[in-house]
Structures are given as C-alpha cells and as structure tokens.
C-alpha cells in the first residue's frame, strides 16, 4: 500500500514523536508544511535549530535560558533567601504567571520513580544541596505535584535539607480557590481536612 513518498513519510514519523501528536495530526502538520510557502517551513526549521543551539540549562537553577545565570537568577529584586523546588520548567512558568512568588527556583527535571529507573542521581539534587549550602538561602519550598512520586521526592529532599538548618516547607494540598465543594473529588476533600488551618 502506497501512503507517502519517502521524504514525506520521514517527516510524518518525526512529527509523530512530538508529545500530544498522533498519526493523523502528524500527517496534517506534514501536509501543511508542504503546502505553506517555503519561507514558513524554513522559518520553523530555523527556529528549532536556533532554540536547540542557544538554549541551555541555567547553571544555578536548571531552568531553560539563553544567558547564564538566567534572568530569574540574575534579578536582584528577588528574595535570594527563598528557593522554590519544582519538577520541570513548565512549573516555573505556572508560578511566574501568578507574579506573587518573588523568590528563586530550582528545577529537578523529574521526580523519584524506581519503576522508571529514576533515582536521586538522575535529578538535580546534588546541585540543589550545593546551592543551599552557600548560606544565603533560608527557606526551601517544595512545590512538587501532589502524587505518589512527588510526595516521595518531597520526603526525600526534606530528609537531606533539614540537617542543613533550613526551613523546609511544602505547598498546600486541598481545594482549588473559587472552586465548589460539591464538585471536588473525594481524595481532595479528605486531604483538605488533613490540611485544615486554624482561624
């Protein structure tokens, strides 16, 4: 059965490797790239190459950056004594949207998961320990996803950080703001009882 000429087949296969892209979307994107003016396709190819070339991980926090240290780490108006530990650069973007957190970040690039063969040495944990030993950091906020792996990673980090005379905190678990109790799932609701606060 003939489907695509070989270069097109190669393009479809490459696009399929992208997250969230299935065979049909890959085909649609590939055909679009062939239909579009040559300059557009070249522009996309160029952006990919340029991004790969110029973007690297910040030597301080591990976020993606084109300058080292990254703009967040260089920003002196930020509270240098607060470090928020996150799983991936995506989480930084989410926190930055709030514009409320004015401290620094540290990206682990994953969480502990023995099933996937991810141990402490596969994460940026050594970098974090080195960073907080400088003395300027007073508090580490663990902002990992509230699932089994995130929880275990938080516990692991707290065991390593507490002996260093730091305040170690975890972001709250519970009900979403502006949400309706009625629509919350049972796990979240019972968790919110555990994390209740005195008024």
């Amino acid at each position, binding site marked *: 059965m003939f489907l695509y000429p070989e270069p097109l087949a190669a393009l479809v296969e490459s696009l399929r490797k992208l997250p969230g892209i299935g065979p049909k979307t890959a085909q649609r994107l590939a055909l679009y790239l062939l239909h579009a003016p040559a300059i557009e396709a070249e522009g996309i190819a160029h952006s990919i190459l340029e991004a790969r070339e110029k973007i690297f991980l910040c030597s301080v926090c591990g976020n993606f950056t084109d300058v080292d240290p990254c703009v967040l780490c260089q920003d002196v108006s930020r509270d240098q004594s607060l470090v928020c530990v996150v799983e991936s650069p995506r989480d930084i973007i989410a926190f930055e949207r709030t514009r409320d957190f004015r401290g620094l970040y540290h990206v682990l690039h994953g969480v502990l998961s*023995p099933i996937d063969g991810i141990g402490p040495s596969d994460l940026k944990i050594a970098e974090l320990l080195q960073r907080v030993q400088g003395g300027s950091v007073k508090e580490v906020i663990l902002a990992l996803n509230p699932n089994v792996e995130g929880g*275990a*990673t938080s*516990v*692991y980090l707290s065991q390593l950080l507490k002996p260093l005379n730091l305040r170690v905190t975890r972001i709250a678990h519970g009900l979403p703001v502006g949400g309706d109790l009625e629509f919350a799932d049972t796990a979240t609701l019972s968790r919110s009882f555990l994390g209740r606060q005195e008024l």
Partner: protein
Amino acid sequence: MLENLHLRFFRNYESLDWQLGNGFTVLSGPNGAGKSNLLEGIFYLGAGYPYRQAQDEALVHWGADFFVIRGSVLQNGLKYDLEIAYQLGTKRKITKINGKRDLPGACTACLPVVIFSPADLLLIQGAPSLRRRFLDLVVTQSRPQHAADLHDYSNILTQRNNLLRQGVFQRAEILSWDEQLVAVGARIISRRLSVFKTLMDLSRVVFASLSRNGELDGAYISQMIPQYSLEEDEDFCRQAFKDALERRRSLDERLHITTTGPHRDDLRFFLQGHEAQLYCSQGEQRLIALSLKIAQNRLLSSVQSSDALLLLDDVFSELDTVHREKVLKELSRSRQVIATTTSFLEEGDSATGQLTPEITLYQAKGAEWL
C-alpha cells in the same frame, strides 16, 4: 427494592420480563435453566460490574450483538429506572439512571446488592488475597475514600519494591517511600479494623441464629504485631507499621520485596475458638461465609439507609433440613431476598408462578414456610 426486571439478550435469556415481589423469592429449576444468570443480571445492574469476573462479551446471548438489563427500583419512596446496555461491536457499555447517562457503578446508590454464591466458600478456604478483597469491598461500601487509598498504596508499594529490586540505594531514598507507605497504609488498616469489627459484630449475631452450635469469632491478622492486638486508632497503626518496616528492613532488602503491610494481612475465623479453615466441616464453613455475606448486606443497608438486596445462589446445598430452616427463618427478616435452588422445595410447597418453562417461582412473606 427491585420491582421489575427486564433482560434482553443476556446470557440464555432472549427476552424476559419479571415483576418481583418483596420478601423471600425462590427460583427453582434444573441445572442450566438460567437461575444463576438471572442473579448475575440483577447483580450487574446494581453493582455496575459483572459477578464472577465475567467478560462482558461472554454475557451476550448467542447470536445477538448486544445485551440490555433494565430494572425499576423503589427506594425510600422514590422510583428509579436503571439500565445497563452493552454493545458487542463497539464494546461500549452505557449506564442510565432515569433515562440519563451516568457513570458505571452509579446504580449502586439506588440498588445496593450483595450476592452469595458457592464460590464464597473460598472466603474461608481460599487465599488471603480473597479475604482482603472481600474486606476492602465492604470497607469501600461504607468509606468510599478507601478505594483511592488502596490505589495509592499499590502504586507506592510497586515503587518501593522496584527500588528494593535495584538493590543499590541510599537509606534516605527508601525512607521517603516508607513514609508515604506508612501514611496511606495506616489509613487502610485503621479503616479495615473499624469496619471488620462492625462486620464481625453483625456476623456473630447472624451466625448464632443460623447454626445450632458454636460462637463465631474473627480476627484481623497482621505481621506488624504478632498478637491480635491491633487498635483501630490511626496513629497507633502508623507507629506499628513504621516499626514493622524498620524491623524487617534487612529482610526486605534481602528478598527485594516488602514483607509487611496491609497487603500481607489476613482475616481468620474461629468457631468455638477453633480455626474455621482447619477444623470446620464444609457445611459449617458455608454457614460462616453466608453469615459474613448477610452481615455485609445489613451493613450496606445501614450505610445506604435502605434495604440492600440479597441474592443467594444455590444457598441450600450442603445444608441439612434443620439448617435450611434456620437459614430461611433468618432471611425472612430481610426486605427482599432472591435465592436459587435445584432441590429445596418439596411436595406441598405451592408455586406462585412460572418464570420460564424451566424455572418455577416460590414466594414467601415472613415465616410462611416454617
């Protein structure tokens, strides 16, 4: 209670309409007449999943490409129309309550149901995992959060066992999984203990009226504490589990598995102080299993504050006449019971109808038969 049942292309039924009465209904007929299939259909409608872990495909009538189970339920004065339909081609299952689509399993709230079958003898004779599954089901019926915790627990356990299998890790790493395991595990154990206590209290009363001799007792067995002295307090469970993990750490590391925790716990039943699995006859074991199921039914009824339907598949086999009468008498207290039998009814019992050419119906209210 279930008022009427409609089966279409379900198992051996091409089409069946049945108006049910309350009280005690007995379906009598030869082997292969479709008595159990009928209970299976009712159970499926109430529970949302097939009994005996049957595949949906296997439930479709030969030659048909779908099945429908429909029923009207009267519960606390309100009427609900329940429907479960399955299509063979698309493998789609649709649950409807009062004509509106709903989640599978949503029917349980309208039609709580408990089934007893000959296979439940395994509750006494079978592997510990069957007893844990039974208890966890009973716990989940009264504390829904239990299901989520069991799911989390199994995820954490898999991660911890994977780490143990790798063989090389830091102490802090295993401790971080332990802490999660203990937090969720303690909730599971504490809920199990509290529900098991209630279940045993009910079972003991039921068993006393079913059997001529003996007092039923049950214990929750955990390797965490050798004596039967677990307390249902969550903090106590947390500490006990934590200590046990610590104690068995080197063993766990050697065997590359987690050797203690709620996933290794068991239930044990005793008749007159003797362990049922070892010393009881088949008939006595059956009565114990039946008592547990009737207790589950009563517990479910009180949780749902309406009477749960009790289905009894082939309940009278292996029981002598005296015990049959006792079982009948005990069950006549329930609002609605449906039982199947091949042999039970004798001359003089008057049939109240013919459901299919092969299945005869007998109906009793209260202690009519006794």
